[in-house]
């Protein structure tokens, strides 16, 4: 068959195969595609900033693993050198996490000066200098009663909101556990009353964890229902989409659904996260075998919001299969950018119904 005939045969296939140009032909879709693709230059790595914290939370990833025992390097000059080298190898986005970055203020300044795009994962109990203009993700694990029990901290949400109300960097990240699903409604109402931004995370069990916070199929379904209600109830405050809810509350975890590209689960160093991503410990070393955004998570249970931001986003090719699946993916990426990039505004969601992850059932069956 010559090339022209083969091309026509492909294009006339009864089993409709959408051309990418058809998928983005709708002006609204095209505009959103152009909006999100401007950020394809982001190349992330993550960095533990301190090996101590001002609270001790049950199920904390950091204190479940070995990273907590390494040396804590707090010399700004060494961090500056690290950041310069990171920039040289193409890193354009830093995630400053573990154990509590607000306890290392001088290091935050150094990182921001060298790589000005990034995010800080904090418990929100200490204020971070406004000169560090990264997004700040403030972890919320339930109402104040639950926080007192699980995190041993009094009036947690009130203190977090007092510190970060009216701060455009702040995004409150509510982690759904098996036990705190119903509490989201009072927390979301309180955050909305204080004009705070909110997104959702899923408790993903640390390696070896078998406690009560681990999700079940029933708790995943209930969580999805709560997420979808809040997207509708508080569209200006909640940074999320239907497809975010699908991806993070599916009975199968992110790796089973999307093939996690982080080095810990991906041996390839050809391109993408498998090539460039590193997770630095506080002694400024990294270990490829442990490199992912939350290294002490049980990968089979991982539904972590930070993981999804990379794992789902990286699967552009797979989602460019038909207009609805692509719109769902665009919503996901649009929400992800609003959560992670300072000044990026989430647009109206394009796909307000449930779309299944592409090839999910086939992949899992095989």
């Amino acid at each position: 068959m010559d090339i022209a005939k083969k091309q026509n045969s492909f294009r006339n296939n009864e089993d409709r195969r959408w051309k990418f140009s058809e998928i983005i032909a709708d002006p609204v879709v095209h505009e959103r595609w152009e909006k999100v693709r401007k950020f394809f230059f982001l190349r992330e790595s993550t960095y533990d900033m301190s090996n101590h914290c001002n609270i001790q939370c049950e199920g904390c990833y950091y204190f479940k693993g070995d990273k907590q025992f390494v040396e804590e390097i707090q010399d700004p000059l060494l961090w500056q050198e690290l950041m310069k080298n990171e920039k040289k190898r193409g890193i354009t986005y830093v995630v400053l996490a573990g154990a509590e970055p607000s306890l290392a203020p001088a290091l935050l300044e150094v990182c921001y000066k060298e790589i000005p795009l990034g995010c800080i994962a904090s418990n929100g109990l200490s204020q971070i200098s406004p000169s560090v203009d990264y997004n700040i993700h403030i972890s919320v694990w339930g109402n104040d009663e639950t926080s007192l029990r699980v995190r041993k901290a009094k009036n947690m949400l009130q203190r977090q909101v007092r510190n970060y109300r009216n701060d455009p960097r702040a995004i409150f990240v509510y982690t759904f556990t098996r036990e705190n699903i119903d509490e989201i409604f009072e927390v979301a109402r309180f955050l909305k009353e204080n004009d705070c931004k909110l997104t959702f995370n899923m408790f993903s069990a640390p390696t070896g964890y078998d406690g009560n916070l681990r999700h079940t199929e029933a708790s995943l379904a209930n969580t999805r229902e709560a997420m979808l209600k809040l997207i509708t109830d508080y569209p200006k405050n909640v940074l999320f989409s239907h497809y975010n809810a699908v991806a993070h509350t599916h009975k199968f975890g992110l790796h089973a659904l999307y093939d996690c590209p982080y080095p810990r689960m991906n041996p390839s160093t050809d391109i993408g996260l498998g090539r460039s991503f590193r997770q630095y410990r506080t002694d400024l070393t990294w270990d490829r075998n442990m490199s992912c955004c939350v290294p002490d998570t049980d990968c089979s249970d991982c539904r972590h919001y930070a993981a999804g931001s990379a794992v789902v986003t990286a699967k552009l090719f797979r989602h460019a299969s038909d207009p609805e699946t692509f719109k769902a993916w665009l919503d996901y990426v649009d929400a992800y950018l609003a959560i992670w990039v300072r000044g990026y505004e989430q647009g109206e969601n394009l796909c307000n119904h449930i779309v299944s992850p592409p090839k999910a059932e086939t992949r899992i069956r095989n």
Partner: protein
Amino acid sequence: MTAETTTNDIINRVAHVMIEELKLEDVTPETFDPDIDLVDEIGIDSMDLATVALVLQDEYGMRFDEDDYPKLTTIRLIAEYIKKELS
């Protein structure tokens, strides 16, 4: 049209799509080295390659396998892949 000419045509077209989609500067389809490593030397990442693959699929009426396109790290490798799919 000889097989060699066809490959060269595809190489030229791939270079054109890459320049246009990724907004590459200081290079033309004619000056784009088909053997330059796109990842190491141009700084192209997986999302960029996916974008280019989607556009090329439309143009040539073929499919890249999802597992294959990340390995196609030069313009010549991409062109040869397309040619093989069309033959």
